[in-house]
């Protein structure tokens, strides 16, 4: 299967280490085999009163095997873990490399948190593919071969029969178990998924549940599902328990059969009796190598699924490709949307036909001017920002910067020309300072402080114990919505690009801070082209043009004054906003 080959390809990159680990593993198993069987020979030989000199070799071997097994196991673990971590690093780097140009593919944005955590978990599952799937299989095959050869020396029949039993235990038993468990396994997954959804609902929606008096109802549903799941799991247990049981049984049956076959041979003198014990333990010991195969196959199955999911996401073609021969960076910085329409691409397999998100949108933002795009949430406003950043290409129409289509420029040129403060800006698990420096790595302290002041973060930073050096993110400080927004604005200001796009810069701020921040941002350099996307109608008098967007179309446009006089959409939105108390 192609997925398997691709996965093996990842291993191939580290082939010498892999080979070493495999060899160590095989030697380790062989030592174990050797220890018991040679010990058995030793005892038998001693019973026959062989001379001490004849026995020294065996004694020596037994001691060696005793030490080597432990030593080789230790080494093998170290090397195989090394391989695993290298694999992990390769996988992650590869995945990142594939995802970066794709982002923000519709795929990923659909249910971002969900899908991303799943991908990361899939990668973690794959990292174990060497340790838990690949290695056991190779070692099992090698040891089986070794055993076969060793037995062959005594009698071909013994060798074949043992090999048969080994195959039965290593392949037959897992196959049987998986067939028996398949449908149950499916059903179990379904039940568990439903149970989990109910639990999540209960925890996240506890307020509503209690208010509606339905907490015990939810509990009842969970108990019910829990019972069903329990019954299913019990049935599964009977089947999965079979795995180790049948392995054990096969091993002992193999030994019995070998005895049964070997005894006549001993009687006939074809095999020296002293080797009988040796043979019995050799056969018994060889099964240790095939016992992990059942779990290994299961694991392989899961890995293949994980790999499939991963490749599905990473194999997508990027939405946007940059030209091989780009135009020089733009000389002037007028941003223009020319009859732009947009819908998310239909060939993504994850959703049905999407409606037009933007419908025939045209506007121009000249250097030194300010344009605002307003409208209720869901009207398509944020998509305009994404299109201006060329995260997607428009379905119809064209977007131009400095007179030329965006498609003509190199990615770097675009990023340098357009700075943005987005709504859902991500704060990394770094210090506040490093988070800001993301916008301009070489910024001086003065520049950073200036941006912080203008974004009205100054007071906030002073209140922090370590100021700008406070760590943020998952393990650090969690910022409120308003604080996060201000960091986004500070980043954009620091970047100081000729085109500035602000997406909902003040949605969570109290009115006083909102006013001050916008005043600072709007008063900036006269060469800058500013595009504001917002549903907060504040300082609108300073806008050169306001566009009212509803369901993807521009329904009104003009200056603040003319729009008010128009008594249309804009006026109604202003009225709604005037309704608000200063209670943020």
């Amino acid at each position, binding site marked *: 299967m192609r997925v398997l080959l691709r996965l093996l390809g990842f291993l191939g990159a580290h082939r010498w280490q892999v080979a070493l680990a495999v060899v160590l593993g095989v030697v380790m198993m062989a030592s174990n085999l050797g220890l018991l069987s040679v010990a058995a020979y*030793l*005892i*038998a030989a*001693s019973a026959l*009163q062989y001379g001490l000199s004849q*026995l020294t070799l065996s004694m020596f071997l037994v001691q060696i095997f005793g*030490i080597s*097994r432990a*030593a080789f*196991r230790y080494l093998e673990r*170290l090397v195989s873990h090394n391989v695993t*971590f290298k694999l992990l*690093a390769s996988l*992650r*780097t590869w995945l*990142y490399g594939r995802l970066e140009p794709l982002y*923000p593919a519709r795929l990923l944005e659909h249910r971002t*948190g969900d899908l*991303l*955590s799943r991908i*990361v978990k899939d990668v973690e599952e794959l990292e174990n593919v060497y340790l838990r799937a690949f290695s056991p299989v190779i070692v099992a095959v090698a040891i089986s071969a070794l055993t076969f050869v060793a037995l062959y020396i005594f009698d071909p029949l013994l060798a074949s029969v043992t090999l048969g039993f080994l195959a039965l235990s290593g392949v037959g038993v897992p196959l049987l178990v998986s067939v028996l468990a398949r449908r149950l396994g499916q059903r179990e997954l379904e039940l568990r998924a439903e149970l989990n*959804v109910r639990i999540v*609902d209960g*925890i996240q929606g506890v307020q509503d*549940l209690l*208010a509606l008096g*339905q907490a*015990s*109802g939810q509990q009842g549903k*969970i108990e019910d599902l829990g019972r069903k799941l329990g019954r299913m799991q*019990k049935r599964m*247990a009977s089947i*999965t*328990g079979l795995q180790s049981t049948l392995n054990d049984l096969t091993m*002992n049956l193999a030994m*019995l059969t070998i*005895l049964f076959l070997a*005894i006549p041979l*001993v009687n006939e003198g074809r095999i020296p009796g*002293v080797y*009988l*014990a040796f043979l019995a333990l050799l056969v018994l010991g060889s099964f240790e190598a095939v016992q992990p195969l059942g779990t290994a196959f299961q694991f392989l199955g899961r890995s293949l699924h994980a790999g499939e999911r991963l490749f599905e996401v990473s194999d997508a073609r990027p939405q946007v490709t940059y030209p091989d021969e780009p135009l020089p960076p733009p000389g002037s910085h007028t941003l223009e949307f020319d009859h732009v329409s947009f819908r998310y691409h239909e060939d993504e397999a994850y959703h049905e036909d999407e409606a037009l998100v933007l419908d025939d949108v045209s506007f121009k933002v000249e250097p030194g001017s300010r344009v605002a795009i307003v409208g*209720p*949430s869901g009207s398509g406003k944020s998509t305009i920002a994404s299109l201006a950043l060329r995260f997607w290409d428009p379905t119809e129409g064209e977007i131009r910067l400095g007179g030329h289509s965006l498609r003509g420029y190199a990615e*770097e040129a675009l990023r340098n020309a357009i700075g943005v403060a*987005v709504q859902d800006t991500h704060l990394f*698990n770094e210090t506040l300072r490093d988070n800001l420096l*993301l*916008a301009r790595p070489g910024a001086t302290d003065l520049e950073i402080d200036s941006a912080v002041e203008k974004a009205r973060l100054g007071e906030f930073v002073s209140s922090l114990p370590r100021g700008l050096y406070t760590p943020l993110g998952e393990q650090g400080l969690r910022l409120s919505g308003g604080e996060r927004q201000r960091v986004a604005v500070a*980043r954009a200001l620091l970047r100081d690009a000729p085109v500035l796009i602000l997406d909902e810069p003040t949605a969570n701020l109290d009115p006083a801070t909102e006013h001050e921040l916008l005043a600072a941002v709007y008063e900036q350099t006269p060469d800058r082209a500013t595009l504001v996307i917002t549903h907060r*109608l504040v300082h609108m008098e300073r806008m050169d043009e306001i566009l009212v967007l509803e369901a993807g179309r521009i329904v009104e446009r003009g200056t603040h004054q003319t729009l008010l006089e128009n008594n249309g959409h804009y006026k109604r*939105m202003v*009225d*709604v*906003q*005037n*309704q*608000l*108390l200063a209670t*943020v």
Partner: protein
Amino acid sequence: MVLGVLGAAATIAQMALLSKVVDRVFLDGESLGQVGTLLLLLLGAVVLRSGLLWLREISAERGAIYVKGELRERLFAHLMHLGPGYTKGERTGELVATAVEGTERLDAYVGRYLPQMALSALVPLLVAAYVLPFDWISAVLLLVSAPAIPVLMVLVGSHAEKHMQRQWSALSRMSAHFLDVLQGLSTLKAFGRGAAERERVAKVSDEFRERTLKVLRYAFLSGFVLEFIATLSIALVAVALGVRLLIGSIAFEPAFLVLLLAPEFFRPLRELGVYRHAGMEGKAAAERIFEILNTPAPVSPGSGAATKLGGRLEIELSDVEYTYPESGRPALSGINLTLPAGSCTALVGRSGAGKSTLVNLLMRFVDPEQGRISANGTPITDLPVELWRENLALVPQRPYLFYGTVLENIRLARPEATQEEVERAAELAGAAEFIDRLPQGYDTGIGERGVRLSGGEAQRLAIARAFLKDAPVLIMDESTSSLDPESERLIGDALELLMRDRTVLVIAHRLNTVYRADYIAVLDDGYLVETGTHAELIEREGPYARLVDTYNRTLA
């Protein structure tokens, strides 16, 4: 566990028979026919042992399933008792993970690790006891090595343990870092740093690898110790047996038997090592679960002194005070407020003033430290909690939509309601229109895996719930506007209908709402600073007037 011991016994029997067979054939030259019965017996022992093994697996698994189910249900029930105060405080994600994944991890701990620990002590003793009577030398050799193992493992292990802990946390931080980077890709790209990050990912992964390996060198040592002692013991036993056989102080059959049993002596301990890691994870999960179960619930179940309240309700708060557990200062102090029956009171104040706390107290998600809340003169703590809440309908700022259809979601308010009643409620709430436009109408799936509703639509659905519940008291937390005039109008109309003839408390953010209200109560920093009508409060030019301040508005 009993089965484990029985299994060990069967193994001993099996091995004894095996050694007998080999002995007879090998030394006494017996033929197949002569040892036939023994072989059959051996077959029987083998089958018996496998059977016992199977039974042991099943019973261990069943035990684990039972424990998991119990804990999961108790955990959920307790979380319901702890209520929104607790679940919002802790990270919801972490609680969900504990309830869903944590309970699964118990499997390894309860089902395998714990029983295995017991077996590790019993089985070796059993084996040694059996061997002792006929070969005390080997038995002693084995018994001497046995305690050495845990002792040495602990010595080596505890040193590595600390490093291991740090490394495991480094591992989870690294995973979090990777997820972090992926989640922030769009931000990285916007600043043109997308490609550069790739180098960092590679570097971080590599550093992690090197550091972890250093630690693993020590961690694996304890495993090495176990293996080494075990295999070396076996080797020594074998050599000792060989020598004694040569001298003639022991016969073949018992010698061979001892050799066969020696690995069995060490087997449980080695298996224990295999389960250790998963077992430790399970133990950590169990500890967390018990930590949650032991957290006291914030609300007493209600004395049951009163059973029912009738008709319209007047709510009175007397000297109510409440402080959140982690906080130093009270969220509410000295609140004296009456909500007359059938009236509408608007609650206003800046964020953090205590408005949500008041709602939590009324809903009895928490109980006041001081003071009392009564309805029609009866303290609400006299009623069982569920019964009290039957009198309240809550429309929150961000209503939660459950996994299920629109119909089911609305019907949560009154499960016995008919389809017509649900549809009527939706109509009154101004929601019927958008529901009819959904792909399957009222049967459309929403919530966790369904269609996403907009903020305004979710609010109307919550209002439909309130209509359906038809409770005497209505508590509403207005959403802060997103400038959708259409949605605003619909919600406003619906609320006007809903508020009739009920005792209403609304956390207000809009002028229209406070105009409509009969009374306004203003909170500031936990204190009730003003009450009155809109006109009265504007004249006073106090905190309320400031909230209504014109500078918040653009020009008219």
